[in-house]
């Protein structure tokens, strides 16, 4: 896509800016859709209907909510550190969105094809932690501070299982470049990494998925925003569009980690039937479909499981997931050495 645009526009800076904005065209409609979808999923799992009034079965509900949030009074607490307070949502969103630079939506489109794509992804998503800490501290609210501190501890601890689980795939492909990892899974669906080196990579997906739930603050690891204890955790004091931005970044983050899971384990934009139904636009379709499956599982888990306490969460991260990841790395390594 980059070459195509360069051919038309001839201006490199303009082309790169456009490439950077393209994921936004996905992220924002996705967030609107995901909010509706989550409300509908939760409703049907809870034996009720969810939004039904606005639009057909409530499809316009999210737009109504965005309108409402835009019209709300922008409340900044007097005693809050207003510079940090106002800056925090942008930092959180920035950290979440910057990860989309390396997400390969299709064979033809990837924001920035760098050779250390995966490494970049893991590191840039930690910027969001800084934003959360800023939000919690600047709110001048003890409960927000709790949420922020817990969140920092949680996200930093679970980076390690994420990285280790991903390491197994990197060992198999030998590259950190996401497009190449995608290409390595071409063909029919049994080439996908989830079925390769069975069962090690399958469990690597399980560990990655669990750890990524902690990365995006979703139940059962949603302590930073634990509604029943902390009211809202780090986003308690935010109102109106600032809150909307924090909310948007949460969904953006959710999809980003799902996108990486898709790329690494489910074959990315490859069609499951080999050459049938494949191509640049079909790639986008398959990619989004697989990403949405993970999103669905994330939402499903949110409405089923209770919340883990903070020290139990650290226990799970450090004493369960990390040792298991090491075992998996060992297994994959031995497999690769033994069965050339």
């Amino acid at each position: 896509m980059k070459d195509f645009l360069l051919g038309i526009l001839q201006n490199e800076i303009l082309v790169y800016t456009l490439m950077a904005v393209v994921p936004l065209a996905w992220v924002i409609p996705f967030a609107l859709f995901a909010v509706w979808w989550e409300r509908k999923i939760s409703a049907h799992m809870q034996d009720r209907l969810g939004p039904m009034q606005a639009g057909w079965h409530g499809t316009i509900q999210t737009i109504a909510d965005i309108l409402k949030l835009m019209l709300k009074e922008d409340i900044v607490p007097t005693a809050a550190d207003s510079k940090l307070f106002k800056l925090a949502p942008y930092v959180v969103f920035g950290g979440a969105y910057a990860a989309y630079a390396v997400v390969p939506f299709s064979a033809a489109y990837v924001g920035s094809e760098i050779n250390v794509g995966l490494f970049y992804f893991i590191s840039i998503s930690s910027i969001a932690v800084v934003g959360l800490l800023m939000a919690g501290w600047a709110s001048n609210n003890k409960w927000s501070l709790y949420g922020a501190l817990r969140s920092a501890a949680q996200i930093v601890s679970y980076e390690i299982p994420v990285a280790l689980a991903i390491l197994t795939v990197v060992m198999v492909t030998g590259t950190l470049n996401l497009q190449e990892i995608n290409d390595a899974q071409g063909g029919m669906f049994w080439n996908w990494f989830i079925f390769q080196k069975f069962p090690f990579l399958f469990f690597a997906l399980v560990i990655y998925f669990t750890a990524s739930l902690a990365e995006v603050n979703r139940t059962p690891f949603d302590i930073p925003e634990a509604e029943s204890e902390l009211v809202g955790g780090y986003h308690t004091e935010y109102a109106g569009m600032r809150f909307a931005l924090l909310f948007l970044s949460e969904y953006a983050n959710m999809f980003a980690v799902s996108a990486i899971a898709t790329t690494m384990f489910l074959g990315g934009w490859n069609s499951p039937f080999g050459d049938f139904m494949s191509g640049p636009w079909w790639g986008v379709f398959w990619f989004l479909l697989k990403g949405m499956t993970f999103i669905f599982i994330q939402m499903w888990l949110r409405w089923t499981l209770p919340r883990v306490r903070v020290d139990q969460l650290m226990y799970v991260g450090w004493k369960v997931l990390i040792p298991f990841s090491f075992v998996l790395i060992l297994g994959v390594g031995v497999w690769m050495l033994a069965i050339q």
Partner: protein
Amino acid sequence: MDVTLQKEGAVADVDAGRRPATVPGLGRALRAEEMVINMGPQHPSTHGVLRLELIVDGEIVVDAIPHIGYLHRCFEKHAESMNNYQQVIPYVDRLDYVAAMSNEFGYVVAMEKLLKIQVPERVEYIRVIMAEFSRIVSHLIALGTYGIDMGAYTPFLYCMRDREHVLDIFEETCGARLLYNYMWVGGLSHDVKPNFQDKTRDFCKYFRPKIAELNELLSYNKIFKERTAGVGVLPPEVAINYGASGPVLRGSGVKWDLRKNDPYSIYNRFAFDIPVGMGIKGRVGDSWDRYMVRVHEMEQSVNIIEQAVEQLPAGDVQSAIPKRIRPEPGEVYVRTETPKGELGFYIVSDGTASPYRVKVRPPCFVNLSTVPAICRGSMIADVVAILGSIDIVLGEVDR
């Protein structure tokens, strides 16, 4: 007598948290202070307007001081200004507004003992059925909201759905869903509708599998067990000394239920078990035990309702209601087993038609007083778990 509790292996040093801790090895260079944080009157997990002042050291709670009185509506003063003992009943409803039938039951049983009235058999049976329905309803809310406190949002909706069936029966009988003014001194305000027995049987058949569903979804879930088992242990002697009652006492292993140990009304005609906490998943007297006692109690209530509805005799429900209530000077204290615990009414009459003193012994008030003792040494998230397992309704705590 020092009744502070000991966390596993820790020595109970009540004053330890009061001194600012110094970090060893750094002399006076680094000083840690405790933070006072308010689980304020408005909080999603305090089940009402309860202010819990937590003094915390990081995530560990050093002390938890409850401040109540935000919902004080002067029930006892109002009762003294009533012209008629029957007029107190709508106020009594509003004590534990979640299980209003139980409150009414307590009051009318106390009044009938004071007046030495014998009510017809039909009235007794209907009262027992309504009281057990109210027990189911109250426990459904308790369990559902406990799930929400733990982060599991779905069981609450399932409990609400099941509760709707009971509220339909209530609405058909007396016209109200939450606050009934149904049980009067000497009888009931309305007789039940002709389809009452069928509807009740249908509900019992419908509800039993739902309890199993709740167990699958929440009770035996690993994360839920980790959050609640071993958390907030209340030893039985401490529980008795603090006056705890109901599921809080039974969760600590004390097999004590007023329906069997101090029977009132016709409870001695029904066969049912008293579930008791046995420390299966953690220690005896932890939050999981209190939670499971409530789940099993719902099953037992269904047993009682099924037996009562089979034996329901015909008759008139309003024949024994006195035209004028003017008890002789005297006093009485009667206690009944509500879903929250032991509800007592101490009624003092001076011979006029207006009560002299109506004192309520609220189970939630007394159960809540155990919270400071239990919470010391646990984490903030555990405070939420403990509060939820004690199951308070502020209407009763504050009156």
